[in-house]
């Protein structure tokens, strides 16, 4: 829900990023980074605990293998630990970590070509999978719950079928609620390319959903 709120704010025009020379984009993150670079294990643990979900989520949705995602996410934090002395506090710590995760994941995808591996969240039994959990958290009727599950499953599958560069941009924008400029810095792409790819990625996802039988309602949406 936080990501949705952030996205709504971004979509309504809040896409500004602190100008160059601002003291620190993330003062708390910068403080932790300085302490961790100085050898504080507690500070580094705090960094890991603060950002593990963001990093793991991105990597998991990119490689679509839980064990592999954990390995790459751990490697991301290890690389970050080694690179901490060179951390520039003008970067948001989360963006810096996501850039490292991006590089590690892209390297891995290039090596292994795992783009077509099916999504694996581990053993999935009725009523206990993440998809079931999200559907059960509401007070929807049985049909709505099933529709919610189907939507989640198909959306996840469509996202998995999307080309890795588009998928990553959609995840950074709509899952993490990142600004265009931050995405450009994390991925190393020009700002214009980020915008164009996001637009194309959405269109391609719509096509993939249509191929799975999804279509707009005939009446007014409600």
């Amino acid at each position, binding site marked *: 829900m936080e990501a949705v709120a952030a996205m709504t704010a971004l979509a309504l025009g809040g896409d500004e990023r602190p100008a160059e020379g601002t003291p620190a984009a993330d003062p708390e993150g910068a403080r932790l980074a300085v302490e961790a670079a100085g050898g504080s294990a507690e500070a580094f643990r705090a960094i890991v605990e603060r950002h593990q979900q963001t990093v793991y989520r991105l990597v998991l949705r990119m490689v679509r293998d839980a064990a592999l995602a954990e390995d790459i996410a751990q490697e991301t934090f290890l690389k970050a630990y080694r690179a901490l002395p060179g951390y520039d506090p003008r970067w948001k710590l989360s963006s810096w970590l996501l850039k490292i995760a991006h590089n590690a994941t892209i390297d891995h995808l290039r090596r292994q070509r795992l783009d077509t591996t099916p999504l694996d969240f581990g053993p999935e039994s009725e009523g206990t999978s993440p998809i079931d959990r*999200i559907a059960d958290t509401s007070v929807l009727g049985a049909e709505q719950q099933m529709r919610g599950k189907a939507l989640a499953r198909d959306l996840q599958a469509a996202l998995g079928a999307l080309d890795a560069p588009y998928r990553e941009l959609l995840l950074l924008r709509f899952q993490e609620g990142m600004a265009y400029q931050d995405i450009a810095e994390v991925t190393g792409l020009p700002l214009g390319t980020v915008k164009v790819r996001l637009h194309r990625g959405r269109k391609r996802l719509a096509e993939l959903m249509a191929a799975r039988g999804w279509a707009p309602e005939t009446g007014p949406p409600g």
Partner: protein
Amino acid sequence: MPDTRIDRRTDPRFSRWLAAEAGGEEAAAEAAFARLFAALPPAAAPAGFADRVMARVAAEQASLVRATWPLERAALWLLAACAAALSFLPSWLPSLWDRLDPATWAAGLATLLVRVAHAVATLAPLWEALSRVARWTALAAGSPQVVAAVALCALLAATAGRLLLGLLDERSSGHAQVG
């Protein structure tokens, strides 16, 4: 496998998103897509993730210490050797001072010169043999017949070399055409 039990073709979030995309307004389309995207199942880091990261960090630090220890140990040994040498310095100073005596240096230099002279004298037969060879060569070079023979040999060798190169060129161009 498609789920045939339900009408899975429509959902309000999906419809709103498509409508927003069709409307052509980027901001509205993004906001609608973000709401649809929230339908994705959550993906949380597994329990104990941070502990495992910290364990890997600790292991790396330990290996780093192990890797740097030999250098530190060598530096310690060097320091200890320097300290020991410094402690002996007062007893060595007089003998070092004695060695700076000009008479000792002159005697040493004379001994060195005598040894060099002996070495040169030992090599005298070798010098003599070399000078004999040089003398024969000079005599041969002074004879017009020998010089003419050497010049003829050189001319023949140069001509043979040119012919050989020409033949090799012909062969290689012939091979190239066939290839």
